[in-house]
């Protein structure tokens, strides 16, 4: 029994964190945001050098062959630096779906190119997570029509994974998709609306139960979104603690006031168990299938609640400065708020958790 990260995992996460501290500073994020850039080419190139896009892709396809827990650790680092790069869709949900439901030919075609970072794959699963304003995706064989809201990792995407309303999983090349960017509060992430009009698709039909596959990859997505929130919230807490230890008012460091100290303590007390929840949910995907779907729902929902709490309290600890653009704290705040609603809102996934347990 060893509920802990091993050395390789710690090293992996630290490597990504170091890279991001070095190359994806707040100034970089600020510039990207000002330019409406959600994919920073040089940061993404550096991540490609580390093999990050291939984290979950088998070595036989040129990937690293790691597991969802590793991907969650990477996502935590990305959230911690509000990094402006694709990951959750293109490097988690899409390769997992192809791996699980693709034919050998489909795998041969797409996985090596995803692993190498040569292509980016946007992901749209809106019809299965209670999204609004969709025109449900219909599919007839290898033709797909409809529209999908809040597809992720759409900027510069060459390929799109789209879940049809009937649960089928389709790959559609960019040339057959109209992509309308959606602008959210979070300027570090790429989301958009996809419009398909009799688009030619490559149906990932090698499995008999596409809906189970879909549920599984959505679960993986949820865990990784939760990990992203964990990282973002941890950064906000760290910044709040640091600020509380420096800022003086009434001739005292404000962290010596119980009101401020207790806000920090409450944040830490809420957030720290979330780390274990994310680890467990990711590990369950990898090794404890009977717990995977339920814990993915809970990781997503609970991190949404705790993330919002931390985002708000960390801002309050910073006083007026937290409310300005000067410290850039709001990039984390907004990433947490976007994560809250992605891949199923907390209300939606809790309801799904009730179904998973047969309560309804």
């Amino acid at each position, binding site marked *: 029994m060893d509920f802990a990260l091993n050395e390789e995992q710690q090293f992996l996460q630290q490597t990504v964190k170091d890279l991001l501290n070095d190359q994806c500073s707040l100034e970089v994020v600020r510039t990207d945001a000002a330019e409406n850039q959600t994919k920073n080419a040089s940061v993404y190139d550096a991540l490609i050098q580390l093999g990050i896009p291939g984290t979950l892709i088998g070595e036989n396809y040129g990937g690293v062959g790691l597991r969802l827990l590793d991907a969650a650790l990477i996502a935590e680092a990305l959230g911690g630096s509000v990094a402006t790069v694709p990951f959750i869709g293109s490097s988690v949900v899409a390769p997992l779906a192809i791996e699980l439901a693709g034919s050998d030919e489909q795998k041969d075609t797409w996985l090596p190119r995803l692993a190498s970072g040569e292509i980016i794959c946007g992901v749209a699963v809106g019809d299965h997570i209670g999204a*609004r304003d969709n025109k449900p995706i219909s599919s007839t064989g290898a033709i797909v029509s409809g529209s999908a809201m809040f597809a992720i990792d759409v900027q510069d995407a060459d390929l799109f994974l789209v879940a049809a309303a009937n649960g089928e999983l389709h790959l559609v090349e960019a040339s057959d998709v109209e992509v309308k960017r959606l602008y959210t509060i979070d300027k570090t992430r790429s989301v958009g609306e996809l419009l398909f009009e009799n688009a030619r698709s490559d149906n990932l039909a090698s499995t008999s139960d596409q809906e189970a596959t879909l549920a599984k990859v959505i679960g993986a997505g949820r865990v990784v979104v939760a990990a992203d929130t964990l990282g973002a919230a941890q950064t906000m807490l760290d910044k709040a603690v640091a600020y509380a230890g420096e800022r003086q*008012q009434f001739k*005292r460091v404000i962290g010596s006031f119980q009101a401020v100290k207790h806000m920090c303590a409450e944040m830490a007390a809420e957030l720290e168990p979330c780390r274990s929840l994310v680890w467990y949910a990711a590990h369950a995907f990898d090794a404890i299938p009977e717990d995977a779907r339920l814990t993915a729902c809970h990781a997503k929902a609970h991190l949404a609640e705790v993330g919002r709490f931390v985002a708000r309290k960390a801002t309050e600890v910073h006083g*007026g400065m937290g409310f300005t653009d000067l410290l850039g704290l709001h990039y984390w705040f907004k990433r947490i708020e976007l994560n*809250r609603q992605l891949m199923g809102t907390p209300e939606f996934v809790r309801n799904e958790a009730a179904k998973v347990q047969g309560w309804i």
Partner: protein
Amino acid sequence: MDLEYSSEYQTFRDDLREFLAEHKHLSPGAVAPRPAGREEKKDEPNPAQRWQQLLIEHGYAARTIPREYGGFGAEPDPLKNHIIAEEFAKARVRPGHSGDNRLVPTVLELGTEEQKRWLVPPSVRGEMTWCQGYSEPGSGSDLASLSTRAEVDGDDFVINGQKIWTSGAQYADMMFCLVRTEPDAPKHQGISYLVFSMDTPGIEVRPLVTMTGEATFNEVFFTDTRVPKNQIIGKRGEGWFVANNTLKHERQGLGDPHQAENRFHEIEALLQNENVDGEPIMSNPAHRDRLLQLQGRMLAMKYNGMRVLTAQRKHEEPGLPRWIIKLQGCELNHQMAAMAIDALGELGTLYHRSDHIRAGGMWQQRFMMDLGLIIGGGTAQIQKNMIGERALGLPKEPKIEDKPA
């Protein structure tokens, strides 16, 4: 307990409605347009100023400002103020003002006759607009530790330092400002309250962008800014006490219960009109129960507001019901915005005039602005100190020391 309005007030309301119906077309737009830059508005009365003048003549603006200083000269009557606010809001007509609800009462109470004649009439006419120079980067909750200095040089104060959170600094004609004039006095006794033109040489205004993405505030920098010595309100070193007059007026404005009720009805409509999988969100019991909990809080705050209004009308100190308004009101608004965002789900995150956006992203903007209001004008923590100490009589924290900053 009588929630009917007496005939005096009913008549007042009827007259106001009639006035609005008749003159509404003269109003310069329902919502105040962003003022033009200072330099552009020096000519003859603009439509906003003419509208203000009309309102003063009828007693719907500057009601309690004495006639000799350009006001209507009525006795204070919170209920009439309430009716005016309600009817203008209902008619979606731009209300008038009383010059500046922080500066003008302060000058009337503590200024010299000369200062009153200089500052109040143009302020009331809308020809002289104001911004507030209180907060500094190093002094937020501990405002009295401010360090912007004003040293005497001949007939002038010479100001050096920096202010922050100055809303409207880029448009205002004038600033009222706290500066440290006696650096060796205990911190509350070394402050003076100055007024001066924003055109004074040595003032630089830089916009301060907030998390909403907009520059609602500014930073203001002073470099050897010279202000004549007679532009002080009150005595040297008494600025802290002069300023508390101003703060008192500002605090009352926050957390209006009608605003919360209006927001609530907007969310109610949102839950009825937005659908998920073909069903209105209102049919989702988790969202509905949350809405109902907010409704309970909102109603409690609305009636609490009526209680405060009644007390003010009777010239009674409302006490606890008033002390809690800022803390509870801002929190309620923030929670309501969060509820609206969550009910919208992913759509609730849209911003920046995105396709599919609902209500122009208003709920996100409010969610952030309300957090700013929870922090600004006395953080929630400072509010709780005040409630604990002033309303409940609990002792202050033991002081560490209290020497000049």
